[in-house]
């Protein structure tokens, strides 16, 4: 009996569907699916030969194969390692993807080595790290971020116009911080050095998101990337610390002092590992769950509890806050932390899910942080005219206001969402739209502050 063409095409469709179901099972790999599919097809062919229609045969064959849950449980029992997502040694896939992965790794490690050498480059021109500490301090981002940007420009195949534009920004920034006549050890120099990486990091974000920089999703991806990058960087730094400790210890036992070597190359490793971390985050993004949202889940309730207790204690003692010069800096840190908790819980959220108990905790955190900061700002506003406007104070106050505005509006949007008056996507959009504000403020501190305050 020749197979009916209509029937056989619908059979192909059904088998395709069944294959897709299997693909979602982590414990069953592509090669296993091919093996099972061969089995299914032979079973169907046998049943059709016995007189069944192909769709009936398909149903029976699928049933005999066993339930997907039971099947994937059995596979998982045999291949338990498959439930631990493997990053460094991924399961064999097709050759094209494999070579793409390899060239990605080669470029990333090439950039990492380049970053390590870039740190050493100024020494060739007689700029000793000990004697020219302020030069190195000002130029930290230029050892790393251009290479990160370059890596993503290569990876995302960014157009020439964008590359030109990015290059101009980096060169302009480098010229500016190196030709401003800062007072040695002045606060404008310190502020510029601290704010420059923030401004340039967002420039890197443009390269990271590529053509998607104008979209909410593109910027959100960059936010996720930055969070994971930080976590991976910390992990790599811990590993590096252990390695150098062992290195110095074991060489000491044979009478060799490795200390100068370690001291000499440590900055290069610190710079290079940023690139390695960036590559890891990229390579693992679809393989391993993001860590930042997990940490957010853990710490949001704890921070909320601490802040509520703080507010309660402040009311109880009734004494108000003790105003010191560094106090506002501490509150900047607090707002930044709360913002990070908010942003990374947003980044992991499916915007379709309705409000739940975690959202209530998040709101408590937001409101209590706002109250605490409002108290601090109130206290400091009364004294600031007395103290005068130094560059440091203006910078700290500026950051506080920027974060306060963001969190205040976020709270409003969050409240609307929880009371079902608004959708979660607006909160997401607000956060991604706000990204350029940080960059703009950081750029102002770098570019405008020094001349404004006479390079003090």
């Amino acid at each position, binding site marked *: 009996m020749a197979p009916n063409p209509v029937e056989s095409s619908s059979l192909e469709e059904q088998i395709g569907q069944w294959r897709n179901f299997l693909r979602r099972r982590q414990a069953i790999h592509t090669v296993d699916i091919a093996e099972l599919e*061969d*089995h299914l097809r032979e079973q169907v062919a046998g049943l059709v030969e016995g007189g069944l229609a192909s769709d009936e045969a398909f149903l029976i064959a699928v049933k005999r*194969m066993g339930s997907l849950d039971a099947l994937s449980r059995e596979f998982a029992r045999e291949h338990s390692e498959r439930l631990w997502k493997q990053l460094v040694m991924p399961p064999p896939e097709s050759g094209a993807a494999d070579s793409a992965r390899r060239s990605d790794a080669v470029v990333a490690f090439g950039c990492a080595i380049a970053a390590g050498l870039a740190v050493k480059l100024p020494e060739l021109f007689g700029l000793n790290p000990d004697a020219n500490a302020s030069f190195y301090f000002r130029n930290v981002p230029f050892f790393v971020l251009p290479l990160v940007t370059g890596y993503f420009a290569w990876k995302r195949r960014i157009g020439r116009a964008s590359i030109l534009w990015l290059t101009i920004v980096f060169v302009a920034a480098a010229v500016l911080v190196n030709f401003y006549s800062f007072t040695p050890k002045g606060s404008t120099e310190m502020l510029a050095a601290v704010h420059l990486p923030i401004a340039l990091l967002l420039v890197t974000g443009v390269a990271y998101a590529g053509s998607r920089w104008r979209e909410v999703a593109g910027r959100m991806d960059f936010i996720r990337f930055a969070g994971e990058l930080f976590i991976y960087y910390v992990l790599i730094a811990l590993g590096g610390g252990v390695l150098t400790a062992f290195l110095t210890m074991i060489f000491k036992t044979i009478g060799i002092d490795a200390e100068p070597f370690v001291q000499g190359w440590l900055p290069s490793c610190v710079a290079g590992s940023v690139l390695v971390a960036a590559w890891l985050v990229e390579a693992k993004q679809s393989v391993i769950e993001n860590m930042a949202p997990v940490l957010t889940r853990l710490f949001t309730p704890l921070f909320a509890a601490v802040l509520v207790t703080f507010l309660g204690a402040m009311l109880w003692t009734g004494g108000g806050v003790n105003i010191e010069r560094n106090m506002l800096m501490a509150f900047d840190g607090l707002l930044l932390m709360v913002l990070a908790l908010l942003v990374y819980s947003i980044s992991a959220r499916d915007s379709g899910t309705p409000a739940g108990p975690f959202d209530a905790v998040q709101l408590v955190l937001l409101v209590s942080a706002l109250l605490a900061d409002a108290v601090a700002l109130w206290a400091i506003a009364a004294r600031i005219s007395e103290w005068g406007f130094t560059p440091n104070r203006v910078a700290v106050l500026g950051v506080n206001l920027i974060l306060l505005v963001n969190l205040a509006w976020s709270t409003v949007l969050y409240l609307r969402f929880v009371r079902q008056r608004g959708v979660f996507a607006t909160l997401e959009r607000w956060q991604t739209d706000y990204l350029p504000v940080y960059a703009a403020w950081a750029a102002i501190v770098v570019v405008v502050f020094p001349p404004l305050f006479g390079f003090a």
Partner: protein
Amino acid sequence: MDINKDLMAASSTPLVLAILAEGDSYGYAILKRVKDLSGGHIEWTDGMLYPVLHRLERLGHVEARWEVPESGRRRKYYQVTAQGKAQLADEHRQWQAVDATLRGVWHAIAAAAQPTASLSPQGA
């Protein structure tokens, strides 16, 4: 007659190894052979055979290779290794021992049941 799960699981290794010792084979054909040999009493859920084959492969009892038969579809063939044959011989001895023991007991029960039935009138 349903054979219980533990017994199925215990017999799967020697059964698969023995079928492969007859000649290289693949999943569907192995299942068919099991069904024929058992007269339909042993019927595995089809999918469950594959984890068993993969376990035997991991242990080094069988080797797998992909071939393209005339049907044109890639198919994974399994072949028993020397180690697998040794394992089969070992399993064979174990099953014989279990079988002999059970046989002895079945006989004893049967023997005990019959004499009591016929002797009881005498003893009374």
